[in-house]
């Protein structure tokens, strides 16, 4: 269990040490090391199959790692179900395909976890939900069902739903990859606002403009390894690594 003391204590938000992950015989993550400070904004990019999604899914135990250590907000992620639940309460996640609950309204989507997991009274949970729906600029859609919204709106609801748990860390797993091009910016704008509020963010994305604007550090992964990490200015203009330069030329080249 995360006590309020340990979450407020110093130390990095996320520390990953010698992380190994296998899918059968496929070695998805190879001795990955990464430390994310509180309030830091990280953008992770890399070709598909490079292990970037797997890595952030390990942080809230959607994937179970096979070796190494993950420490989130001072709590080690192991088989202790109390630790896992505690970490999940403090770590929000936004998915590529939104994963909103289709049988609930937008408001209910935002209220269910705070009422069930944090035992918030319904009135309080609703007030919080409406505040975050305002923040992602769709307060008027509260009573609709997810299926009645556009992709961009759905993804903003998903962000609001995660924020309603008032997490300390937000994970974004390719949040704009499933969106039509004209809806990408409305989601990115919300993420930029979130970053300026000081949220600790770990984003897997190919939106290099976003990385340039908000990232403190850009990480390039390939073949299950972190190949290079640098502040955006240096990463985009003065990359040392051949694989990074090749990837960047493919992403930025057109």
């Amino acid at each position, binding site marked *: 269990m995360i006590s309020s003391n340990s979450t407020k204590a110093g130390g990095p938000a996320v520390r990953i040490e010698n992380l190994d992950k296998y899918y059968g015989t496929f070695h998805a993550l190879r001795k990955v090391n990464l430390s994310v400070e509180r309030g830091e904004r990280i953008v992770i990019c890399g070709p598909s199959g490079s292990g970037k999604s797997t890595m952030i899914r390990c942080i*809230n*135990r*959607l994937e179970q790692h096979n070796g190494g250590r993950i420490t989130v907000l001072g709590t080690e992620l192991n088989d202790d179900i109390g630790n896992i*639940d505690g970490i*999940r*309460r403090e*770590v*929000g*996640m936004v*998915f590529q*395909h939104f*994963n*909103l*609950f*289709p*049988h*609930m*309204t937008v408001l209910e989507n935002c209220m*269910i*976890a705070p009422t*069930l*997991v944090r035992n918030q009274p319904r009135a309080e949970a609703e007030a919080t939900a409406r505040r975050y729906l305002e923040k992602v600029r769709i307060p008027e859609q509260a009573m609709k*069902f*997810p*299926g*009645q919204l556009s992709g961009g709106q759905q993804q903003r609801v*998903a962000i609001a*739903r*995660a924020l309603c*748990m008032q997490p300390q860390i937000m*994970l974004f797993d390719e949040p704009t990859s499933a969106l039509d091009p004209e809806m990408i910016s409305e989601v990115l704008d919300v993420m930029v606002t979130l970053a300026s509020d000081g949220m600790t963010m770990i984003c897997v994305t190919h939106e290099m403009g976003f990385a340039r604007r908000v990232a403190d550090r850009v990480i390039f992964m390939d073949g299950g390894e972190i190949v290079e990490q640098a502040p955006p200015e240096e990463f985009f203009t003065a990359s040392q690594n051949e694989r990074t330069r090749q990837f960047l030329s493919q992403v930025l080249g057109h």
Partner: protein
Amino acid sequence: MEMVIVAPPAPGRLEDLKRRFFATPLQALLSLISLAIMVSTVWKLLNWAVFSAVFTTSGGPEACQAAAGACWSVIAARWRIILFGLYPFEEQWRSALACLTVVVMTVLSCIPAFWTGRRIALVWGAGAASYYVLMKGGVLGLSYVGEEAWGGLALTLFIFVTTCLIGFPLAVCLALLRRSELPWISRTTGLIIDGVRSLPLISILFTFAIVLPFALPQWLAGDKLYRVILGSALFFSAYQAEIVRGGMQGVPAGQEEAAMALGMSYWQRIGRILLPQAMRNALPATINQFVISFKETSLVVIVGFFEILASGNAAYGTGEWRFAYVEVYAFIAFIYFVFVFSLSRYGAFLERRMAVGER
């Protein structure tokens, strides 16, 4: 040049009929022949069932047999046996009330306003208790009537409702166990489901009614009726478990991941995210299973229970009304129809209601 597109005028009703059924001479001929057959069938049926039928018991079986049409007097004379079976004649009002209790209980629990744990529990608790007290008696000044004397519609409804009531939660449990991550649990559950499904219902009923008492201690065996209901619930749950599992497989993996990422516990994920969506997917097949189970209650006659169909046999089987079996079966068919058709319409209502979020 400006183009104006005008929709062709909608054909009138007569025009439409002409185009659909009388387009060519051959088609016209076939249409007329079909129409003639239909009219004559409907006329004969109406003539038999209404115009030439006998409705009163005044003339007795003899007047009835002489008439050209249906002999509905058999129903007027025998309806109490059909509805209540061997239940003591003087006490049949209790059986009627018990039927009503089951119907009211079922209707109430079909209304969305009652879908909270406490209300449903209250409805079922009160309903089951009053059914049991009414039927069995022995308290509140009601005379004692053993389960072996229960029969007719009251028994059919009781067996159906309790089968579903026990079988449905059991089915959900089996479906959840079958998708367990522990292989020995999922395999064992799979074996149980496939095992039960491989047996005919009759053999299960027979085993539970006749064979089980030899294997169980006296105090555990209970009345034959309850063993039969357990057997039928087990059979129901094996099929329904696969229907529920199918519904679960239709829920994208991302749904459970999202719930996990929000910190929801296993039971919260199952109860609030997975099952509601799975049941929506499984609804058409579930209604189907309910309908089949309702009609399969007639098989309990094999172990000596007089449910509605067997009571019907008894109603015309006693000498004087022997000729009127068609009318008795028509009456029973009508009762089945009322219940099953209501069930189907309720299923359709649920589908419409649940489709709200899918738009």
